[in-house]
C-alpha cells in the first residue's frame, strides 16, 4: 500500500515512468530481430525522419531500410493498436463499473472482426470512404455489437451484474466467431491467412495501416479524454453520476461510440487482439489509482509499449516462425482475467 500511495501521490513520476517504458519498449522492439540494429542508429534514423534531415552517412543503408520500411511501421502500428485497445478497455471498465470489461471479452472485437471479414471477402468498398471503408464498417459493427450486448444484458438482468455482462459478451463472441467461420467456409480459400488475421497480427502491414488507425485513434482518444471526469462519476453508478450533475445518457453514448471507434479501428488494422484492454488498465489502476484523468493517458502509454513488446516476443520467441500476437496477449491476459475474477468473487 505504501508504495502505491507514493506512486499515486506523484503524477509527474507516473507519466515519466510510463513514457520511459514506452521509449525503451519501442527502441528494443525496433532493435531486436533477425538483424539486430544498434539503438544509436535507430535514434539517428528516426531523428532524421522526424526533423526531415538527410540520414547521417555512417548509418548502414540496410539498417535504414529495415527500420524505415519494416520495423518502425510495424512497431508503431503495434503501439497504436495497443494504445487504442488499452484506453478503450479502461473506458469500458469505468463505464460499466467492471474491471473485467474489455473490448475482446465484451464481444466488441468479434463484432468488429465480422465487419472487417465481411468487408475484406466481399470486397465491399463504399464510395467516398475508399481506403477507410474497412475501419468504418469495423467501427459500425463494433458499436452495433456493444449496444446489442448491453441491451441483452439489461433484458436478462436489470441490475447488469458483472457476470451477466460477461456471459452475454461470451455468447456474442462465440456467435460472431461462428459467423466468421461461416463466411470463411463459404469463401473457401485462404483459411490459414484468415486464421492468422483473426488471432491478430501487426506484421507486414506497413505505413498505410498506420494511416488508417491514426485518425481514429486521435478522435477516439480525445473523446474519451474529454470524458474522464464523467467516467470517474459513472464509476460510482449511473444514478450517482446524474446526481453529481453528469448528463449520463449523452456521455454514455459518447463513451461507447469512442470505445467502438478505437476498437473497430484497431481490429481493422490488426485483427482481434484480446486482453490488452483488460491487462493494461488493470495494471495501470493498481499502480496509479482509478482516477480516469490519469488512468486514460497512462493506459495509452503503457498499452502502446506493452503491445510493442508483445509483438517482439511473438516474432522472436520461436523464430523464424511468427506467432499471432493475440496468442501472446491471451497467454498473459487469461490468467490475469482469472485472478481479477477470483478477487472480485472474494470481495462480493
Amino acid at each position, binding site marked *: 500500500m505504501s508504495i502505491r500511495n507514493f506512486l499515486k501521490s506523484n503524477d509527474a513520476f507516473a507519466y515519466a515512468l510510463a513514457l520511459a517504458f514506452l521509449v525503451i519498449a519501442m527502441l528494443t522492439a525496433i532493435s531486436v530481430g533477425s538483424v539486430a540494429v544498434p539503438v544509436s542508429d535507430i535514434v539517428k534514423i528516426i531523428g532524421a525522419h522526424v526533423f526531415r534531415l538527410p540520414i547521417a552517412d555512417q548509418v548502414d543503408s540496410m539498417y535504414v531500410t529495415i527500420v524505415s520500411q519494416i520495423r518502425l511501421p510495424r512497431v508503431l502500428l503495434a503501439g497504436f493498436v495497443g494504445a487504442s485497445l488499452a484506453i478503450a478497455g479502461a473506458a469500458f471498465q469505468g463505464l460499466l463499473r467492471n474491471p473485467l470489461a474489455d473490448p475482446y471479452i465484451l464481444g466488441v472485437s468479434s463484432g468488429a472482426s465480422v465487419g472487417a471479414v465481411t468487408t475484406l471477402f466481399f470486397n465491399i468498398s463504399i464510395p467516398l470512404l475508399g481506403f477507410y471503408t474497412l475501419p468504418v464498417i469495423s467501427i459500425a459493427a463494433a458499436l452495433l455489437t456493444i449496444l446489442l450486448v448491453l441491451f441483452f444484458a439489461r433484458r436478462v438482468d436489470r441490475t447488469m451484474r458483472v457476470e451477466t455482462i460477461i456471459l452475454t459478451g461470451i455468447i456474442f463472441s462465440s456467435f460472431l466467431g461462428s459467423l466468421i467461420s461461416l463466411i470463411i467456409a463459404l469463401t473457401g480459400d485462404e483459411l490459414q491467412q484468415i486464421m492468422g488475421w483473426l488471432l491478430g497480427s501487426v506484421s507486414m502491414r506497413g505505413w498505410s495501416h498506420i494511416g488508417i488507425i491514426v485518425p481514429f485513434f486521435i478522435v477516439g482518444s480525445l473523446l474519451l479524454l474529454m470524458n474522464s471526469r464523467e467516467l470517474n462519476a459513472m464509476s460510482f453508478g449511473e444514478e450517482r453520476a446524474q*446526481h453529481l450533475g453528469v448528463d449520463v445518457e449523452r456521455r454514455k453514448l459518447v463513451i461507447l461510440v469512442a470505445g467502438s471507434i478505437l476498437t473497430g479501428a484497431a481490429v481493422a488494422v490488426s485483427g482481434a487482439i484480446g486482453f490488452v484492454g483488460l491487462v493494461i488498465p488493470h495494471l495501470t489502476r493498481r499502480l496509479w489509482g482509478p482516477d480516469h484523468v490519469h488512468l486514460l493517458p497512462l493506459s495509452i502509454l503503457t498499452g502502446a509499449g506493452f503491445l510493442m513488446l508483445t509483438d517482439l516476443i511473438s516474432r522472436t520467441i520461436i523464430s523464424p516462425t511468427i506467432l499471432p500476437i493475440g496468442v501472446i496477449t491471451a497467454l498473459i491476459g487469461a490468467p490475469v482475467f482469472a485472478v481479477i475474477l477470483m478477487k472480485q468473487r472474494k470481495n462480493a
Partner: protein
Amino acid sequence: MLNLDHVSGGYDGQPVVQDIHFSVSPGEFFGILGPNGSGKTTLMKMISGLIPCMSGSIQLNNQNIRHFSRKALAKKMAVLPQLTAHTFSYTVRETVALGRYAHHEGFFQTWTPEDEHVLQTVMAQTNITAFKHEAVQELSGGEQQRVFLAQALAQQPNLLLLDEPTNHLDLAYQKNLLDLLKKGAEQEGLTVVSIFHDLNLASLYCDRLLLLHEGRERALATPDGVLTEDLIQEVYQAEVKKHPHPEVAKPQMYLLPDEAETTEEVTIGPSMLDIRPEHITLTAPIPLRTISSGVCGAGIGWHRDFVNRHVLCDYNCSDPEGEMRDYLERNGFDTSRTVGMMTAVQMEDAAYGVWENDYISVFTVVTAGTGNATDSARAAGQTRPAVQGTINIWLFVNGYVTEDAFIQAIMTATEAKAQALRELGIKDETTGTIATGTSTDSILVAATQQGETLPYAGTATELGQLIGKSVYAETKKAIQRYQAG
C-alpha cells in the same frame, strides 16, 4: 424551496406514486415514511430528476426541475445514496472532489482555490480529513457514508435528499450523521428531505413527516400528528404503542410482539408474600407494570421483585440508594427488576389483604409508622430522621391498568390513607393538626397487565373503590398494630 404539485409517476407507464402534493420550506428537515413498496424511493427519484413525472410538476425555487440542466440541478440539489459496494478504489479525496463536478464548465476544467476551500471545509465538517488519502472501500460503513455525505455537500446544495441514510450504520454513526444534518439544517439553512425506515429516528429529527401508503399520501403533519397508533397500525400492519421520548418532546413508537404462547393468567396474592424481620418481599411470576416512589427501582417500569426493608431508627446514610442496592444484591435480588423501599417499622406489623369483586382483585400491603406524621397542608419542612415513621403502601392490581388509571390509583390510595390517619386522630406534632401522611411515605402500584382492561381508577369506578377501601382498611390496621407494638 421545493414544491410538489399533485405529482404522479412510476415506471413503464405504471404510476407507483400518485397525487403527491407538498412543499418544503428552506431549512426544514422533512421526512418521508412508508412501508416497503409504498413508493418512497420512486418519489425520491422523481424529486432528484431521475425519473419524470407522469402528471403534476416538481419545482425547485419556483422553477420546474425539468427546466434545469443536470449540472444546474446538481448545484442546487445533492443526493446522499444508500451505501453500495464500489468497484474501483478511489481515495477519499478523489471521491469528495467529484462533488465539485457540477461547478466546472468546459473541457479544460481546472481545480480552483475555491474548489479546494470547499473540499477542505466539507471534509472537516464530516470529520474525514484524517483519512483523505485512504481508499474509500477500506473504510467502515459509517466512514464511507460520511465520505459520500462530504461529496454531496461539496456540491454546495440548498437541498439535500437522502434515501435511508442510516441504513447499515452503527447506532453511534446513525446519531452522528443525523446530528450533522440537523446542524446543517439549523445553522446553514440546508433543506433536508429524507426517507426513513426507522419511525423513531424520523420522529426525533424531522420537523414534518409525510406518510405514504400504496403510493398515496396517508398523512402529512408533525411527527406527533403522523405517528399515531391508529395510522401506523393501519399503514404498516403492525401493532405499535406510542410513548413520549423520555428526554425529547417527540413521540416514539414501540412494536408489540405477538405473544409466543398464551401465558397463564397470573393473580398476585398473599401466597407470594414473604414476611421476615429484616424485610417483606413479594416476587411475582411475571414482570409487573409499576409506578412507584421508593429508594430504588422507582418511577415507571417493569419489575418482578418488591422489597420493603426494615432499617433501624437511626439509619443514616449519605447514599441510601447505593446502600439499598448493595443490600438487595447481598440478598440475591436483581436490582434491575426490583423496587426497594425502607421503613423503621417492625415487619410483623404489616397489614395486607386481598380485596375483590366479581371481576377485579387488588392485593394491598401496608407497613405504617406515624412518628413522622405530617399535615401536608401545613408542613414546614421539618427535618426529622428520614425513616422513623413511614407509611409504605403496595397495591397489586390483577388486571390491565392504563396510564390514566395508574395515576388515579395513586390519587385514590393517597386520599384513603389520609382518611385513615384522620379517623385515627394522628397529629402532626409540630402544627398540632391532623396529619395526612408522613414525610417519607412511599407508594407502589403494580399491575399484571392481563385480563380485564381497567381504564380508570377514580373513586367512581369499581377499581377505585377497591383501592380506596383496601388502602383505608389496611393502613388503619397497620397503624393500630404499630401503636400497639
